[in-house]
């Protein structure tokens, strides 16, 4: 079986449409900030992280200093560390090349990560890497097109629909992860992250709220799962 093609086929079903639609707005913001269509599409292919792209273009539009832009982008992307460390070992097989690991790490984003957590575990080990690369390639291709469309069409869309596009990531991410949840730890981490967020935003030092929130929420969920497991053993 051609697993690269199978991955691409499964992405085409829905995930690609969602991630592509949710980044239409990036094209528009890039144009508002004075960037050409090519650079907007380039940002999708290179940066491949919606929040970082939004941050970059809106910071340039606000004339933020370049070093400050780089620092805030970097802080927003620290989240890739736990995401990659959780996903890459699932993708690795005996003969996985360094090049494909680099490509896979680059392709990890909110959508591809959440989908991979759900779709990869049942696949044979050797199939996972080509499947993930095919899946991601399709998402990247579709999103490149949508970034260009957003750049060309900005200003012509009514505001409620533009808001709807920005709302896609939150609802899609939460429902995808709830669907992928197999153990209490999965949904507990999600619920705790949502619940702690307002407090982290208020109390953590500027820019550090997400790492702090991730560490606290993730650790609490982990401990709770341990307690559940311990009780099961006792019975």
């Amino acid at each position, binding site marked *: 079986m051609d697993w690269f093609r199978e991955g691409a086929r499964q992405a085409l079903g829905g995930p690609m449409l969602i991630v592509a639609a949710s980044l239409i707005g990036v094209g528009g913001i890039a144009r508002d*900030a*004075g960037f050409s269509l090519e650079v907007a599409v380039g940002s999708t292919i290179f940066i491949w992280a919606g929040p970082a792209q939004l941050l970059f273009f809106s910071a340039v539009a606000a004339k933020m200093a*370049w070093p400050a832009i780089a620092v805030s982008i970097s802080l927003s992307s620290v989240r890739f560390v736990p995401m990659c460390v959780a996903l890459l070992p699932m993708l690795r097989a005996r003969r996985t090349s360094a090049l494909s690991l680099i490509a896979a790490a680059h392709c990890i984003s909110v959508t591809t990560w959440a989908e991979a957590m759900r779709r990869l575990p049942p696949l044979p080990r050797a199939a996972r890497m080509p499947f993930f690369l095919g899946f991601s390639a399709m998402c990247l291709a579709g999103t490149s097109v949508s970034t260009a469309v957003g750049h060309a069409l900005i200003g012509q869309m009514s505001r409620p629909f533009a808001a709807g596009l920005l709302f896609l990531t939150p609802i899609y991410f939460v429902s995808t992860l709830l669907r992928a949840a197999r153990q209490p730890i999965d949904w507990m981490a999600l619920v705790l992250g949502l619940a702690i967020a307002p407090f982290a*935003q208020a109390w953590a030092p500027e820019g550090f709220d997400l790492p702090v929130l991730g560490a606290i*929420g*993730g650790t609490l969920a982990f401990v709770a799962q341990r307690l559940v497991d311990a009780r099961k053993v006792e019975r």
Partner: protein
Amino acid sequence: MNPALDHGLWPWIAMILFGFLPSEFWRMLSIFLARGVNESSPLLVWVRAVATALLAGVVARLLLTPSGALAAIPLWGRLGAMGVGLGVFALTRKSVFIAVLCAEASLIAVGFYVG
């Protein structure tokens, strides 16, 4: 508009230097960090929970302090649409597609109502 962006390759250089590299650094670093981590180790279970909580935080931030067009929707509209989506998700035995559709319809309806 930033005047520096008028010159030839500068927009590309700015995007690569201040957008791509600061972000990509973490992905590439993770390749080394992930080396030798066993798929079934407790460490990985913890890391996965941290990643999930972190992304939930990103979602909460988009909902609570949105930017752009989403900011025009009042808080009750954003949370309400999320509630509708999750309610439908539970009722339809975990259909992501129908949940997203209903949440989006509610949010866009609120948008037209307040707009």
